[in-house]
């Protein structure tokens, strides 16, 4: 395991459920923090902490899907595992497309839950590295990356940024090298994970 123990955030309006999950995860050696609502969660966490969220879908005021949307919007990379009492396929598809690690139905089997948590935590860890790499890019390189993940040709980017095509090619090479990514497809996924939108004005 990592030196700083990863935290599992449990957000569920049902106290009994929070207690049960805490017991299970504690027994597996995870550090657990519980929140009774999405709002409480937003107020009680700070950026920089790594971990994953086990999130109930159906909650009063702010529901799980809405929380996911906010986190993505704010660029918080914390991976999310959804737990739901009555999930349907369209809902799970929407959640996965929005970046959820897994979409589990209650009652949840311990093995399934633990597997999902472990995946999420490793993803969180890798996302932490990815963020480090991204932070080392120059502003010009980030600009170029946004254009690239939007699927634009070098020529178009050069035209937009008012520079030569060769220049763009160099920046692009450096981005790939610094992010340790081989294909544009991987770059797109990384950008998605990092919550980087497509370039403005495109």
């Amino acid at each position, binding site marked *: 395991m990592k030196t700083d123990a990863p935290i599992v955030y449990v957000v569920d309006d*049902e106290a*009994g*459920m929070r*207690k*049960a*999950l805490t*017991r*299970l995860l*504690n*027994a*597996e050696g995870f550090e657990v923090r519980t929140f009774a609502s999405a709002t409480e969660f937003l107020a009680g966490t700070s950026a920089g902490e790594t971990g994953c969220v086990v999130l109930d879908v*159906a*909650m*009063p005021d702010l529901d799980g899907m809405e929380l996911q949307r906010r986190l993505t919007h704010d660029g918080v990379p914390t991976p999310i595992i959804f737990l739901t*009492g*009555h999930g349907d396929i369209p809902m799970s598809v929407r959640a996965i497309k929005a970046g959820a690690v897994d979409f589990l139905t*209650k*009652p*949840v*089997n*311990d093995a399934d839950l633990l597997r999902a948590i472990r995946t999420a935590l490793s993803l969180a860890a890798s996302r932490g590295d990815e963020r480090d790499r991204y932070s080392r890019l120059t502003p010009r390189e980030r600009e170029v990356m946004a254009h690239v993940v939007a699927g634009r040709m070098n020529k178009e980017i050069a035209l937009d940024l008012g520079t030569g095509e060769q220049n763009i090619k160099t920046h692009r090479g450096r981005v790939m090298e610094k992010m340790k990514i081989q294909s544009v497809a991987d770059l797109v996924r990384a950008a998605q994970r990092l919550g980087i939108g497509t370039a403005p004005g495109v």
Partner: protein
Amino acid sequence: MSWVTIVWSMMAAACLTLAGMHLLIGCRQRKAWGNVLFALVAVAVAGMAACELWMMRAGSPSEWGAVGRWIHVPAYVMMLSLVGFVRVYLRAGWLWLAWAVVGVRSLALVLNFVFSPNLNYREITSLRHIRFLGESVAFPVGVPNPWMLLANLSLVLLVAFVVDATVTVWRRGDVRAAIQIGFNMIFFVLMGTGQAILVLWGFVQAPITPSVFFLGIVAAMAYELSRDTLRAAELARDLGESEQRMTLAAGAANLGIWIHDLQRGDVWASEEWRALFGFTKAERLDLDRFLQRLHPEDRERFRQARARAIEGGGSYEVEYRVVLPEGRLRWIASRGGVECDGAGKALRVRGVSLDITERKEVEEALRESEARFRTMANSAPVMIWMAGTDKLCTFFNKGWLDFTGRTPEQELGNGWAEGVHPDDFDRCFETYSKAFDARERFVMEYRLRCHTGGYCWVLDNGVPRFASDGAFLGYIGSAIDISAVKLAESEAAQQRNELAHLTRVTTLSELSGSLAHELNQPLAIILSNAQAAQRLIAQSPPNLAEVSDILADIVSEDRRAGEVIKRLRTLLKRGEIAFAPLSLNETIEEVLHLAHVDLTARGVGIDRVLLAELPRVDGDRVQLQQVVLNLVLNAADAMSANAPGSRRMQLRTACRNGSVRLSVRDEGCGLPADAESIFAPFFTTKPHGLGLGLSICRSIVAAHRGRLWAEPHSERGAVFHLELPANAA
């Protein structure tokens, strides 16, 4: 002028005057023997007075002796008349004593004419003259005749006879007559007898003057008789007045008075009577003419009644019709009394007749209206009964008797109550008595045994009856057989319950997702807890304290799941309707618990404004839950288009005027223009709804004697009101 002449003449004159008067009365009035006998006494006394006067003036012993013999004749008449008077007028005295007096005196009279000169003297030797009332009067000197004792004995017997009669009269209570006649007679007879004995036996030298004493008797008798005459006159006057009064009264009452003399055969009748029967004043009346006036059908009946009365000497009363000369009919009530003589022979019939045409017409009209009522009552297609002021039934129509198959005798009074179903009897009796005492109308339903032996439901409607002056007369009521209605009602209730069940299942199926969650949630908690426990036990050392906590949680979560299933089962059950007092607040809480997940999922917030002291209502728990659930889900549906933060629903309970009310307010899309249309069957806004929710809710509420209605809220959305009567207890 001689005083003796004057006094004795006047005595005689007075006696004769009185005698004349009473003889007249005696002749005019039949059976006035008292007066006749008195007249005889008075005449005799007058004769005695004349003889005495003669004797006092006698010039020779032979003249005195002759007159002394003749004076016995008036004396004889007087004594016999006195005895007769006592017997006739006082109706007393021993008869044998009377005969003894008559016998002894008669013997004395005979002997008087046998001896010479008379009964008193054997011989009269000379006349002496003595002073009497200032003049010289003759007085005999001679040898007294011992047979004179016979005359004295007759006087003594007379006294004894009068004493006996006086005692009898006294005892009879007629004290005045006893004193007036009896005492006077005794006193004066004794005086006269005493004087005669003293003078005639030569003890005293004085003229004999018995007439003076007997005049006292005459005066007493005359006084007594004149009182009788006076009283008779008074009676006659009173009678005249009362007759006048009666005639007046009879005239005023239009009573006709008549007398039929059976001896002479003629009929006297008052003017009123003649007017009643259509006879003129002058027309001669007899029985045949009268019978001619009678209606032929009534003649025989009248004849028989009259004949019976005459035969038995009693009276008769008969009502008959009279055919007046102009052809008009008149009803007459006639009453006659037969008068008989001593031998029981009918002498005359007296009577009164009265015009009763009006009464007869009223009676006839009454009989007709009674008959009309009975015809109507008996042909009416309902059961009709009547009761008197004492609650006892006095009439049942044919409809009733046909229904119960019993006789009027069995049903009258309280007999009808035997047919009331024992389970309904007390309630029935209470309703009936209470309404009866308050003089109020009442309606009651009960089971009544019908002619088949089974019980049928009847609806009985009773109304008090009052006379035109407001006096309470009793009740009249009608009952109809409502078995068919009852059956239809129970079938309708059955169908309503079936439908209620169906819609309940439908409603619950809408909730199935959230209900699954409601069950899922405890299961999820149990599973996670159990798996955590497995890990804790596998640790070394096992964390048993934590495991114990986990088990406690598992138990409570399991119970929670059980509760959900129980609640669901209740709602899904197709059970019998059971009315019981329940709290509407609790019903609301149960429903909100059930719908909690669904409402949460839909983002609906609930505001409860529940009155703590809410009276209970009578109702079926499941059906009322269904109604409340429907209202809550409808409110949530109405707000589905709202922004997530503005989906608030308010449930408010209140109590007013003996009703409990739940108002469910939403902030949704509101009601259609015709708010009532939403309660119509098959009205729905949902693609898969049956459209029976509100319709069945309303019929459930109606079965609870409540109301369910909707109105738009002044700001936004709608308010649904459920109102149920509060439990009185």
